[in-house]
Structure formats: structure tokens, C-alpha cells
């Protein structure tokens, strides 16, 4: 066959393929899927049965408390509690009378961002090792359970356990004073400090970063990686061009978990911070004990609003639906 004929055959083949493909274009497939999902009409009662439990759950445990908090935050404070029939935004004003709340809010946001970033840096290699370096599924699961282990230990035990490490007579102080001798007195700041709070928060929450990244990496299509290697990519380039971008949804979900959990943190900050470190959570609790319920509710409202904005930014920023 001459080369001219070849071209001709190619063109013809392409034209035919084009017509054949009109049959399976994404639009047609989409239309077919829509037809399939709406297909045999489901009884409205069945639909109702499906959505009822979720709706009731959301209403009772999410919407109702939020509405309550919002309402309480605009009620007037009285010496014994609040007056439900007098609306005002005084409680918000009280929060910002001094700079304490604003500073704490700023610190809380900063701490949440810092812990989230450090959790990515620490959690990603762990997840990567578990998902891609451990070959046997048996060991993979065993090691994953080991990673989960801190989570099984009661919250309070986990936090108190840091005392022997960071505390006045803890391992680090012992090392600094007795062995190295670079300090004469044990450093109190190790335990009741922002550093200690940050370290413990990472230890507590890194799990929420490891888990989604692990699952994302474990289900990654090996063929994509082989294809990259095949096309001349070094292992480093394969990671940068293929593995990392495809694991981003896991990273994002981990970031949302860690950010939201750290923003709302109360126990760790109180116990490890020892009263010297505050978070919005501890401030809200302080107002609650005062008692100034409207101010506590106002603080909680602001916290929820900031978290919502944070999550929205994360989602927007990463365009999660477009990655996979």
C-alpha cells in the first residue's frame, strides 16, 4: 500500500470512528445515567423513608443546637442567666471590650493552621510509608492499627502521659539539666506552654491526617504510576507529577478534620496549657462559668463562623471535585 493510500485509509477510519463515537459521547452517557437513576419512579414514601433518619439527626443534633446558640447569643444577660425576650448584640460587644477575645481568636486560628500544616508534614510520610512501601496487606493493616493505637487510649491518659516527657521532672528537662547541663534549672515552659500544647495537639490529631491520606494512597491506581515510569519519569518526578496530586483529596480531608478539631479544642489546651494558654474553647467555657451565657454563645457563634469560612476556603482552594 502506498503512503497516500495509508493516509486515505486513516482519514476514512477516523471519520468512521467519529461517527461511532457520537454514540458514546459523554453527553449521551450522562443522559443515559440520568435516565437510569430516575428510571423506574420510586414511590415518594420510599424516598421519604430514606431521607427521614438523616434529616431528623441533622435537625436534632446540628441545626437545633446552632439555632439555640445563635438565639442565646442575642439575648440579654441578667445576673441569674438571660432574658429570652430582650434582643441585643451586647454580648458580642462584651467579647470585644478587651483585646483578650480577639487575641485568643487570632492565636487559635494561627495554632489550628500551624498544627494542620505540621500534621501534613508528619502524617504524609507515615501514610505514604504505610500505603506504598509496606507491600503485604497483612503488615499494612497491622501497622495501621499501631498508628491508631493512641486513639484507643483514653483522652485524658494520653494527655497526662506527656507530663513525664515535658514536665518539670520529665525526660527532656532531665536530659537538659543532668546530662547536657546547658540549663541549671528545669524549664517549666516546656509543659505549660504554647509549644507543649502544639506538640500534644499534633500527637492527638495527626491520626486524622494519616487515615484519609493512607486510604487515598492505598487506592491509587498503580497503572498511573507505571505509566509515568514508562514515560521516563524518575521516582521523584513520578511522586511530584502523579502520586502527590492524586493524593490531594486525602490531604484536604485530613486538613479539614485537623483544622476543625483544633479550632474547637478545649481539653488539651486546658490540661497542657495549664491556664496560661487560652483558646476560643477555653474562653467560651470561662464565660459559661461566669455565668455569662449570651457571651459564651456569642463566642461559640464566632468560632463556628470562622470554622465554616476555613473549611469553605480549603474546599474552594483545592477544587476537590476536579482532582478525581
Amino acid at each position: 500500500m502506498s503512503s497516500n493510500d495509508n493516509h486515505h485509509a486513516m482519514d476514512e477510519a477516523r471519520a468512521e470512528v467519529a461517527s461511532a463515537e457520537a454514540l458514546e459521547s459523554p453527553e449521551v452517557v450522562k443522559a443515559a445515567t440520568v435516565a437510569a437513576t430516575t428510571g423506574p419512579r420510586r414511590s415518594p414514601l420510599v424516598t421519604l423513608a430514606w431521607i427521614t433518619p438523616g434529616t431528623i439527626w441533622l435537625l436534632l443534633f446540628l441545626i437545633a443546637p446552632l439555632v439555640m446558640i445563635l438565639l442565646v447569643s442575642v439575648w440579654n444577660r441578667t445576673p441569674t442567666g438571660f432574658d429570652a425576650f430582650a434582643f441585643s448584640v451586647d454580648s458580642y460587644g462584651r467579647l470585644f471590650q478587651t483585646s483578650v477575645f480577639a487575641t485568643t481568636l487570632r492565636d487559635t486560628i494561627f495554632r489550628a493552621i500551624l498544627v494542620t500544616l505540621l500534621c501534613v508534614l508528619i502524617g504524609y510520610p507515615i501514610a505514604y510509608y504505610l500505603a506504598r512501601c509496606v507491600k503485604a496487606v497483612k503488615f499494612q493493616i497491622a501497622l495501621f492499627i499501631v498508628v491508631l493505637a493512641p486513639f484507643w487510649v483514653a483522652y485524658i491518659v494520653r494527655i497526662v502521659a506527656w507530663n513525664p516527657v515535658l514536665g518539670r521532672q520529665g525526660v527532656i528537662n532531665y536530659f537538659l539539666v543532668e546530662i547536657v547541663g546547658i540549663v541549671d534549672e528545669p524549664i517549666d515552659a516546656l509543659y505549660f506552654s504554647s509549644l507543649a500544647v502544639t506538640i500534644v495537639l499534633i500527637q492527638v490529631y495527626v491520626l486524622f491526617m494519616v487515615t484519609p491520606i493512607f486510604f487515598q494512597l492505598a487506592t491509587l491506581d498503580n497503572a498511573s504510576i507505571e505509566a509515568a515510569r514508562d514515560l521516563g519519569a524518575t521516582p521523584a518526578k513520578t511522586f511530584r507529577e502523579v502520586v502527590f496530586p492524586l493524593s490531594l483529596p486525602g490531604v484536604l480531608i485530613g486538613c479539614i478534620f485537623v483544622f476543625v478539631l483544633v479550632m474547637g479544642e478545649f481539653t488539651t489546651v486546658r490540661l497542657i496549657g495549664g491556664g496560661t494558654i487560652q483558646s476560643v474553647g477555653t474562653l467560651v467555657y470561662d464565660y459559661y462559668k461566669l455565668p455569662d451565657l449570651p457571651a459564651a454563645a456569642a463566642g461559640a457563634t464566632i468560632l463556628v463562623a470562622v470554622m465554616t469560612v476555613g473549611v469553605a476556603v480549603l474546599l474552594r482552594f483545592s477544587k476537590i471535585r476536579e482532582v478525581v
Partner: protein
Amino acid sequence: MSDTGLVLKDVYRIFPGDVTAVSDVNLEIANGEYVVFLGPSGCGKTTTLRIIAGHDEPSSGTVTIDGELMNGVSPAKRPITTVFQHYALFPHKSVLNNVAFGLKMQGVDKAERETQAKAAIELVGLTKFMDRKPRELSGGQQQRVALARVLVTRPKAILLDEPLGGLDRLLQMKMRVELRALQRELGITFIHVTHNQEEALSMADRIVVMGDAIVQQVGTPEHLARHPRNEFVASFMGDNNVFHGTVSGSNGGNVIIDTDYGKVEVEGSAASGSTASMAIRAAAVKISTDAAPATNGVRVRLDFAEYLGDSVKLHMDLDGKPFIAKVPEDRYAEVRALEGKDVTATWAAEDGHLLEQ
């Protein structure tokens, strides 16, 4: 051994647990050849392909390309690329960036690699879809992106793992023509793995039939269709009827085999008393309502006449064993009328084919 092209020498692949996936494979594939590895699933054809690509290493034996030893060379450094079974396109990259990927890895600058990628995309007729993500394309379009992605790196050979497996039949037929034309146009070696006989016959310069981890036979489509070497090839290629029996004598250049269904005579020689088997192609079988002859003829019940457009395939029953024949399309009405009736199937001795034991 040839200095050019791809050469597999004494290649074995034994998986842990003593599972032999590939055994004693010796092959020479010339540059510019279209070779199809054909075999049922688990026959070792995909493992062989992975060994060629470098995604797997042989337990023993060598792979050379143009005289250069490939053992231990990473897939990234081999002058060959693979079109994966499910295309393995990068889901997060646009068509353009998928195609430009190989050049990017070679360090080609952005402007140059985009020019080359666009040319490759045009070659496969997808210019309109350049900015789309793979999931926004149909199966056939995705497959052509996968092709463009390997073509752009100008490999010496392209390996295709079940390239048409995910497409519907109509599109498969079109892509066969297109792939073949593309291969001729580019003059690049294509090594294509499939379990589909029809696909192999329609596309290959040479077919390598694999079964039970070994190469059963290598040959042109016509040679394999007419001269299957053994029973495995004869049955796997389809459209063959196989008879087993004992050699009872000879007649000129023919050997006579006593089978459960009568005597058959076929070209060749074999020791009297030895076991033998022969194959007869469906297209060489003649159907009539006459009485059965003493040799090379059996009485069968015609169950079903399958109209294929250019021929009619007859599904028949030989004492509980399937027996097939193909007759010209213009006899459809006649054979259709015989459905459910006993007929006589005969063939000429020279059309039969003695199989290796």
C-alpha cells in the same frame, strides 16, 4: 541472533510459590513489525509484555533491543512505551498535559513539548478535546489519548495491553483499522496483547500464540489459521474440529487414523499404532444430505445455522461433541431448513491437518 529489533532469549518468569508464568520464550521481533501475543487469560502473554516493558524482570533469560541488553534497565530508560489496558491516563491532567508528559520528563522545554504534543493529538484526531480531562472523554477517545501520549516520545516499539478490550464491538472494528494504518504510517514496532482471535488475525503481521506459559506457535495469521501446530492452537484459534485416534496405516502420503467417529485420512506420516490427532477447519467442511463416505466423513445433527453476513456458521452435534462448519452465505435458506436434521459432513484429505502430539 539478530542485532536489530527486539529479541527475547530463553526467557523464564517464575513467581514466588513456584508459579511458572512464562517458560522458555525465544522470539525475534523485527523493527516495524506488528506482532500480536494471543492466548487465554493466565497464559503468560501479559507477563511477557511486562518483561519487555521493564515492569517485570525475567527470572532468567535476556531481553535485547537493537543488540542492547535490557535486563535491569528501568522502564523509564527503555526505548519502548506501553499503552496500558485501561489506558492509565493521568486523571488530574488535561489531554494536552497527558500527551506532553513524556517530553516533560525528558526535559523538553514547554513551548517545544506543547508543539509536539499538539501534533500528536492532531495525528489521533483529538485537537478539539485538548483541554479536556480524561474523564470527559469517551473510551475510544481516551484510548487515542493514550496512543498519542506514547507516540510523542518516539519510541522504538509500542506495547499495547488489550488495547481494544474496553471498547464496544463497533468501535473495536474501527480502531483495528486505525491502529493498523497508524502503525504502517509510523513504521514503529507494535506489540499487541489480546485474547481475541479475530482481533489478532485481523491486525498482526505475525501472531505469537501463548498457552500454559509457553509459546505454542508463531506465524502469520494465514499460517496459523491453516496450519495450527498442535491441539491447543487448533482449538484456541477457533473454527477447527479436532479428531483423536490411533494410526492404523498409511495411504500414499497420507496417514489413516481410526477415531471414535470413523476413519480419517490426512497428509503426513506417523508410526502405526501411535496415537494421533488431526484438525479440520470449519470452512473446509462440506455439508450434504448424502450418505457418509467410509473416510473423512461423519453424520452430525445440525442444531443451529448462525448467519454471519459473509458466511453461515453451522453448529452441529457429533455424538454430544460440538462440530462446526462454515458455508457460503447464499446457502443460508437451504441449511436453515436442515436445522434439527441429521446431515453428512465431509472434507478432503488435503484440507485436514495432522497435529503434533
